[in-house]
């Protein structure tokens, strides 16, 4: 993503969904620093904070970085309220569904996380009232970041391994997954493109805004946005004849059933899961079951040891099965 596009996105999309006071303060930040920000955090009666590469910075009313909380600009409830009004285009009722999920996806694939008092109906979050915090997450596409992983996933020119990409939070799983989708979908001279179906439950892969992918997800990709994974996988199999199904953060019983369905239809699966090592994955009942059922052929572990998205290890599931799952840990 070029700096110019990012700057344009920050001014035209992120700042337009922000209270004027906060916008003016952040607008005074040094340009180089502004372009490196990953997150902007607004919390009621707490200092204005921005995050860059897992490090957070407090900002004062003049847009300068300060160390002490006393010097920082304190975000008020009205500023959060105004920001929410702007994010919803003065129409809170139009983002009810987003509020129940706890985030809004903006144009350009950027996202705003929302916290407050959850209103529960029939055991599910119906909406969020008394919003107390907003987290603006600036999305950056890193084109080409999946080069190494794509070589591991490719079985031959037309086939892929069923793959599980695992790692702790913030290790670049989704960024790499997004680039894999773009790469496999578009194809190149050596590898023809594949029809890919993306079930994007949290709008993180394609970053759809009003149903239209804001990120480059390739030319043969069909996206089901905001759809529950298990239901989405079945729908895609029935309606879009994908060769590969891609989804993010699996782990439920329903996911297990739908992945079984996809495999029986001869479709390849690429997905991600939270977990730093094989022991952690085996401790999760449904993931462990998926591994035992050999739903995946490769498990790729990521960490941040040499920068975000470092491949720490690649595990062949058949090797685990061979030595016995009980002996792994």
């Amino acid at each position, binding site marked *: 993503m070029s700096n110019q596009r990012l700057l344009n996105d920050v001014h035209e999309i992120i700042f*337009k969904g922000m*209270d*004027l006071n906060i*916008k003016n303060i952040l607008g005074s930040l040094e340009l180089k620093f502004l372009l490196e920000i990953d997150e902007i955090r607004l919390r009621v009666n707490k200092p204005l904070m921005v995050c860059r590469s897992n490090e957070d910075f407090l900002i004062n009313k003049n847009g300068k970085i300060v160390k002490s909380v006393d010097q920082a600009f304190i975000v008020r409830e009205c500023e959060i309220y*105004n920001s929410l*009004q*702007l994010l*919803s*285009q*003065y*129409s*809170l*009722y*139009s983002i*009810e569904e987003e509020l129940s999920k706890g985030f809004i996806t903006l144009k350009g694939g950027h996202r705003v996380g929302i916290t407050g008092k959850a209103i529960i109906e029939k055991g599910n979050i119906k*909406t969020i009232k008394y919003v107390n915090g907003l987290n603006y997450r600036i999305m950056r596409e890193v084109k080409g970041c999946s080069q190494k992983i794509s070589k591991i996933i490719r079985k031959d020119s037309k086939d892929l391994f069923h793959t599980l990409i695992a790692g702790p939070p913030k290790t670049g799983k989704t960024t790499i997954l997004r680039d894999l989708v773009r790469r496999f979908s578009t194809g190149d001279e050596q590898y023809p493109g594949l029809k890919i179906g993306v079930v994007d439950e949290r709008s993180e892969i394609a970053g759809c805004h009003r149903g239209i992918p804001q990120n480059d997800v390739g030319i043969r990709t069909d996206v089901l946005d905001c759809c529950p994974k298990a239901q989405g996988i079945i729908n895609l199999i029935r309606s879009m004849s994908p060769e590969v199904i891609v989804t993010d953060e699996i782990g439920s019983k329903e996911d297990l059933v739908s992945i079984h369905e996809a495999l029986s239809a001869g479709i390849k699966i690429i997905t991600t899961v939270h977990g730093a090592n094989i022991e952690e994955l085996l401790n999760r009942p449904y993931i462990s079951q998926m591994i035992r059922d050999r739903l995946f052929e490769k498990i790729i572990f990521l960490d941040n040891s040499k920068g975000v998205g470092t491949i720490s290890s690649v595990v062949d599931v058949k090797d685990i099965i061979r030595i016995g799952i009980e002996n792994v840990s």
Partner: protein
Amino acid sequence: MYLKILGLMIIFISCVYIGKFMASSYEKRYIELLTFINFIDYFETEISYTSTPVIEILDSLTDKIKSPFKEIIIGVSEELTSYGYRPLCTVWEENLYNNKNKLSLSQEDLELLIYFGNILGTTDMENQKKYFTVIKSRLQVQLTQAYEKKLKYTKLFKELGIIIGLFIVILII
């Protein structure tokens, strides 16, 4: 002689016109209240069935609604689209007061219109509908009152204009 007749005619027509003008404010108030109730109905439909954001509803209304509400809606819509940093309720209230002279509404009616701007877009769909119902029922009371006044005073002021006109003409003759 001719000049005198012309002068008397001017006086008579002026009195009739003043009477009609005073009567028309009652008619206008009734029509404006009716228009605003329809305006809320339109909002309710758009919000209930398509969750259309306020700005888009306002934009779609500019061709459907007549002056003086047209000017108010265009004013609100333009400010929200171009500047977009001020609360909707403030922009709505300002535009209402800027166009207050073009409206024939009473202070009580205006307060209801301001209240509509205060709640618009601030809650979930269910509560928006509840607010709309409350505002509409209060507007309905105002509308009934406006209709009664219209019946009573429209005829009165029109006739009063003619009578006063004739009275002055007879006095001068």
